[in-house]
């Protein structure tokens, strides 16, 4: 496990310190940085984030970090996007009008459409939901979570979510974990090569969340 040279990208939106503490808890000493040089020299980067999609893209543009993150993605070294950080890696989002994302993974960010008849499903979706393995038609066998950030995590484990929008990947194989809110089933964990993302906050999801972070820092490349 390479415990160092992990960069948490600071583009002004995000609970950087909670994320940092969770990495420290599993024995790492990550650097919070908004410098291109640090990103390109890192072994792993984390894209945290909370808040609006357009504000997130604006933050990355203003700090001129878009190209560095895209270049880093091409190196094959692990990237983890958390919540908004994951959404920003998609092609586009429909949050407050249509906005272009980084297009590292093909797909869209869509708004929840909860049933209005009850008071049960309010937006934002705050709280703990379980993550399960998506059902695929093409008979994929074996353990789809092996060697991913979900390795060793029990199916239907609970994680902490805060979001009003969710990710829909064009390629169903990019979606490795799904959750449900109201009538929407959505991708809560995605993976494409060296890129991983989770809609929930592993840094706020107790011991299971720390397992996700341990898996990420142990990922080989």
């Amino acid at each position, binding site marked *: 496990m390479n415990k160092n040279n992990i960069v948490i990208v600071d583009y002004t*939106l995000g*609970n950087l*310190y*909670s994320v940092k*503490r*969770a990495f*420290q*808890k599993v024995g790492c000493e990550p650097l919070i940085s908004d410098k291109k040089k640090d990103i390109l020299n890192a072994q792993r980067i984390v894209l945290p984030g*909370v*808040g*609006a999609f357009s504000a997130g893209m604006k933050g990355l543009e203003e700090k001129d970090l878009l190209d560095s993150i895209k270049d880093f993605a091409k190196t094959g070294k692990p990237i983890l996007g958390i919540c908004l950080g994951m959404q920003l890696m998609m092609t586009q989002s429909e949050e407050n009008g249509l906005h272009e994302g980084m297009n590292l993974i093909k797909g869209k960010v869509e708004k929840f459409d909860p049933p209005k008849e*009850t*008071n*049960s*499903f*309010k*937006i*934002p*979706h*705050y*709280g*703990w*939901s*379980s993550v399960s*393995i998506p059902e695929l038609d093409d008979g994929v066998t074996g*353990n789809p*979570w*092996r060697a991913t950030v*979900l*390795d*060793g*995590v*029990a*199916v*239907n*484990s*609970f994680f*902490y979510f*805060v979001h009003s929008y969710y990710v829909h990947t064009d390629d169903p194989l990019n979606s490795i974990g799904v959750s449900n*809110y*109201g009538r929407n089933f959505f991708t809560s964990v995605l993976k494409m090569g060296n890129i991983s993302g989770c809609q929930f906050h592993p*840094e*706020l*999801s*107790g*011991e299971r*969340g*720390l397992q996700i972070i341990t898996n990420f820092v142990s990922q080989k490349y």
Partner: protein
Amino acid sequence: MNNIRLIPRLDIKGPNLIKGIQFDGYRVIGTAEEFAELYYRAGADELIYQDVVASLYRRNSLIEIIERTANKIFIPLTVAGGISSIEDIRKILRAGADKVAINTAAIENPKLLSEASKMFGSQCIVSSIEAYRSNNGKYEVWVDYGRENTGVEAVEWAKKVEDLGVGEILLTSINREGMGKGYDIELTHKISSIVSIPVIACGGAGKQKDFTEVIKQGSANAVAAASVFHYYYALPKEGHTMQFKKKELRMGKNIDSGNIDFLKNGYGGQKAITVGTCSIKEVKRELTESGINTRTETFFKSNTE
């Protein structure tokens, strides 16, 4: 139904976890961090830290406790009490809190809520509403931890804070607070049905059924509770749970640790406590049996082969 969150609320004075009745008559129960860690292990879904004297002095004094707690617990921590500026919020988030709840300063300056929600994101800003039901049945917002009546109508204020952009409402009934006679169903339902953001009901839990009631009849989206959990988890201890000779347990130069009768005499020494006690697990079991979903430990087939 969405998974209901169960949130222990820790009222803090100095280093101590304290508890009163209707925001008065505080007893020291232990240290805040000790209980925070206990609740984290016991399956709490989030935690709330309320600095009970902060608002009076217009400053939150919990920074060090937040820092120490944040290194040990990895569930959302909301901090309340005396938060009155963007700078205050920044400091508290930096110390390790995930959300802040604002009451007094928001009444004085509602723009603080909109500015904070824009700057840190709605998910991070909670409007704390402490309501008192007066004899004419009207709910009014009180500030300064139940010391002052603003005359503001609680339901109207709830609608307003939603428009100002906060992510959720922490709704406390002052009348019910610490009484253990159940939540204020009417107040909770009035507000939860008028706003589209989540409402956390607080004040009055004294037994498992109270939780079910405020969720089913009061439409609460999350429930906070204090005494009912504090006294449960404090019970098994023998003798003194705190040594006042220890320097870190003192507030400032003078030892001022408040009413420590509870620690000296234990549960039986406090005849005035009307609250029943139960564990987080017991409450979750009760909710599950009533058809309410919560986060429960899963015993499904493991993914590890």
